[in-house]
């Protein structure tokens, strides 16, 4: 990861610090490359979807993957506040294991002037044994953000 990306990612209010929902579920950035991102959500009681099995709620995986896809897009396009998820498809391969942290590895494999394409997986320890996989498309240079953009 280059210094430009690194400094952009540490702008106050960006990515994870200062994003209330990301902070609420404990989302942290583990690693970032040119168009790739690795994020982690630690296991926590308030994230459980089924109290009997203690498996994390699917919505937590959705938040993790959506956010990780966004970070991958930002790392490739250097656009930060003004990207928006167009669509997100998630395939759930198996339930998450209780007490284990969940990681998401995402890759922005193509970006045009206005659209970025991303794919990723959520897993515990092994990317080839995923909990879920996803594909997403993001819009770049969204108008709303441009209007609201702070100098």
């Amino acid at each position: 990861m280059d210094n430009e990306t690194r400094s952009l990612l540490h702008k106050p209010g960006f990515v994870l610090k200062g994003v209330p929902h990301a902070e609420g579920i404990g989302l942290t950035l583990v690693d970032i490359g040119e168009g790739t991102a690795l994020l982690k959500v630690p296991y926590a009681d308030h994230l459980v979807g089924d109290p009997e099995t203690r498996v994390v709620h699917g919505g937590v995986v959705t938040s993790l993957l959506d956010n990780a896809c966004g970070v991958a897009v930002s790392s490739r396009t250097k656009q930060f506040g003004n990207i928006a998820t167009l669509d997100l498809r998630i395939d759930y391969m198996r339930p998450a294991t209780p007490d284990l942290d969940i990681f998401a590895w995402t890759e922005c494999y193509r970006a045009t002037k206005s659209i970025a394409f991303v794919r990723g997986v959520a897993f515990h320890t092994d990317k080839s044994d995923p909990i879920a996989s996803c594909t997403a498309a993001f819009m770049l240079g969204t108008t709303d953000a441009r209007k609201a953009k702070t100098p």
Partner: protein
Amino acid sequence: MTPRDILKAAAESNVKPDLTALLETIPYAKYLGIRVDRKGTEITTILPFARHLIGNPVLPALHGGVVGGFLETTAIMQVIFEAGATEMPRPVDINIDYLRSGRPVDTFARAIITKQGRRVINVHAQAWQEEHDRPIATLRGHMLMPEA
């Protein structure tokens, strides 16, 4: 009480499960603050706005994952209500289309079952805010009914 207790009790007495009680047993649904409103057979889920749901503090806008998780919960509630499940249905895949940014206000959602197969249910959910006809996101997904 677990979700299973509530579903089994409802099935045994041949009544619709109490979705409010069911949501109370699901920690992440409680954390998001999801509520449910039932009028006859029509189920509407409600996500009251709260600061911890924000994903873009600049706009500000709801986190895409929050909207997705809310729609997924809506779909699961509809499946439970209509299909008479005694176990929690499991999502197989979901497709979310984000149509508008989720503004910092209350969000509502409803779901319909588009096809009920023997083991897999196809479900469609839609979320809106001030205007029902201006949805902010839609979800299409498949749920697997665990074998009893």
